[in-house]
C-alpha cells in the first residue's frame, strides 16, 4: 500500500468527472430507509458501537490491568466474593467471569454503562442501555451487513439475542431488553467460537454485585467522599488555597467510580477554578491576580492525582499544557470545553 495520501493531495487528483458522475448516480437510487434516530440517543446510536451482554453473580478475576500500578492489588483479595442473587428488576448490568480477563475501563451514568475487559490483545466490551433505545440500535446493527439483515440468533443470559460479525475476529451481539435495559457485548481479536464462549461466561448483576465485581481501586458510593478529600488534600500540599479567593465553589463532587474519571472531575474542577480566575484577571488587566493564578496552576505537575493519571490518559498532560500557556500570559483557547469545566 503506498497510498497514504493527505486529503489535500486527494483533492488535487484529476477525478472531477468520476466524482460528479458518482454524485448523480447515488442520487438516482431509491431511498430505502431514512428513519431518523431519536434525538436523545443521537450520540449513542452509532453504526459501530460495540456491545453487549450479560449476567449474574460476581466472581472476581484478576484485575492487574486496572489503572496500571499504584491502584489496588491484583484482585485476589476479592476472588470468591459472591453477591446476593439479584432480582430481575435491577439486574440489567453484566460482568464477565472468565480467567485471564481483566477490567480495563468502566463508566456508568444514569442511563447505562460501559465495562471493558482486556486479555492481551483481545478485548471484550459490555454496554447496557435503557430499553427505549433498543430498536434504534438493532436497526443500526442490521446495517453491518449489506443488504441489512437481522443478526444470527443466539442466546445470551437466557434471552434471545442477535449476533453480527464486523469481521472474522470482531463480533457483536444485542440481547433483548429485560428489566428496562438491554445489553450489547462486543469481542475483538477472537473468532466466533471464542466470542460465543465468552458470551456464555457473562453474568447478570445488580448494582451491589456489580460494585463487588470491580477491582479494588473502584470507588463505590460509600468511599467517594473520602477519595475526593484525599485528592484535595494531595493538591493542598502544593497549593494553598486550593481554590482562588472569592470563588463561589462550595466543595467538590463527582459521580464517578473509576479513579481516573474521579480524578479528572476533582483535579479538573480545581484547574477550572484557577483558569477562570486567570481569564477574568486577564480581561480586567489585573496583573497581580494573573500572576497569582499562574503560580497556582504551575503547581499542577506536583499534584499527586495528576501524576497518578499520567499513565492512563492525556488529561494530566492537557492540564500541564494549559498551565504552561497561562505561565506565558495566555488564556488557553477552549479550556472550558477541554477540561469539561462547569457552566
Amino acid at each position: 500500500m503506498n497510498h497514504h495520501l493527505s486529503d489535500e493531495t486527494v483533492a488535487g487528483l484529476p477525478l472531477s468527472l468520476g466524482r460528479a458522475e458518482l454524485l448523480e448516480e447515488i442520487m438516482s437510487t431509491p431511498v430505502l430507509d431514512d428513519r431518523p434516530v431519536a434525538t436523545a440517543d443521537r450520540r449513542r446510536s452509532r453504526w459501530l458501537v460495540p456491545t453487549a451482554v450479560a449476567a449474574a453473580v460476581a466472581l472476581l478475576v484478576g484485575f492487574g490491568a486496572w489503572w496500571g500500578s499504584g491502584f489496588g492489588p491484583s484482585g485476589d483479595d476479592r476472588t470468591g466474593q459472591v453477591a446476593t442473587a439479584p432480582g430481575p428488576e435491577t439486574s440489567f448490568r453484566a460482568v464477565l467471569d472468565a480467567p485471564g480477563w481483566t477490567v480495563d475501563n468502566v463508566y456508568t451514568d444514569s442511563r447505562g454503562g460501559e465495562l471493558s475487559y482486556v486479555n492481551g490483545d483481545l478485548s471484550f466490551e459490555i454496554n447496557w442501555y435503557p430499553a427505549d433505545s433498543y430498536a434504534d440500535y438493532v436497526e443500526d446493527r442490521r446495517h453491518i451487513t449489506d443488504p441489512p439483515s437481522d443478526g444470527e440468533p443466539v442466546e445470551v443470559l437466557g434471552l434471545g439475542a442477535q449476533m453480527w460479525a464486523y469481521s472474522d475476529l470482531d463480533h457483536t451481539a444485542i440481547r433483548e431488553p429485560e428489566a428496562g435495559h438491554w445489553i450489547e457485548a462486543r469481542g475483538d481479536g477472537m473468532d466466533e467460537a471464542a466470542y460465543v464462549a465468552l458470551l456464555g461466561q457473562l453474568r447478570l448483576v445488580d448494582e451491589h454485585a456489580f460494585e463487588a465485581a470491580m477491582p479494588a481501586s473502584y470507588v463505590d458510593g460509600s468511599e467517594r467522599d473520602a477519595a475526593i478529600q484525599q485528592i484535595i488534600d494531595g493538591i493542598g500540599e502544593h497549593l494553598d488555597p486550593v481554590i482562588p479567593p472569592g470563588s463561589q465553589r462550595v466543595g467538590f463532587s463527582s459521580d464517578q467510580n473509576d479513579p481516573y474519571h474521579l480524578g479528572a472531575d476533582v483535579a479538573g474542577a480545581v484547574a477550572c477554578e484557577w483558569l477562570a480566575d486567570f481569564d477574568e484577571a486577564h480581561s480586567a488587566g489585573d496583573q497581580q491576580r494573573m500572576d497569582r493564578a499562574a503560580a497556582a496552576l504551575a503547581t499542577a505537575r506536583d499534584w499527586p492525582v495528576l501524576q497518578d493519571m499520567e499513565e492512563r490518559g492525556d488529561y494530566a498532560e492537557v492540564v500541564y499544557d494549559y498551565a504552561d500557556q497561562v505561565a506565558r500570559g495566555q488564556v488557553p483557547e477552549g479550556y472550558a470545553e477541554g477540561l469539561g469545566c462547569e457552566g
Partner: protein
Amino acid sequence: MTDGREETFRRLYAEHFDAVLGFALRRTDRPEDAGDVTADTFLVVWRRLAHVPAGDEARPWMYGVARRVLANHRRGDRRRTHLGERLRRELAAAVPDVSDGVVQRADVTAAMRRLSARDQEVLELHLWEGLEPREIAEVLGLTTVVVRPRLSRARARLRDLLGEDPGNDPGPPGHDPSRHPQLTRKERP
C-alpha cells in the same frame, strides 16, 4: 422536500468527498477499491441522510460508515452496486503517479504494522485523519473515556518502536485537527 434532501446531500458530498476518499485510499491496496468504498459510503449517507449528525460530527460519522464498508469489502463481500465506475477508472490512472503528499513516513508505517490491530486503528485515525479522541470515539462507536487511554497507550507503544514521538512528526494529517484538545467527558445522554 426532495429538493432539500438533494441539496443537503450535495453539500455533504462536496464537503466530505476528499476526506472519505482519502480515508479509503489510506486503507486499501488498490485505488479502485477505495473508489468502491467511497461510493458505498456515500450511498449509505444518501439513504440515511436523516441520521447524519450536524456540524463537526458529520465527518467522524462518515468515517464510521466508511470503516464498516471497508470491513465488508475486506471480508470479501462482492460489490453489489455498479456505482462509481468512472471514478474507479480515474483513480486507477491517477493514484499510482502520486508520490508526494503522503501523511506519514515509511518507517512510521512499518512500525505501526507491528502494533495490534486495535492500536493501529486508533493511531491511524489520530495520525492519518487528524482526529482527536472525541472524534475517534465517534468513529469507533466508543466513548471518549475509553479512547483516550487507548490512544495514549498506542502512542507510547509506537514511540517505543520508533524511539521518538510519532505525534510530533506524522506529516500533514488528512485534515486539520482541532486546535485544542477535546476532552468533554459527559457526552452520554
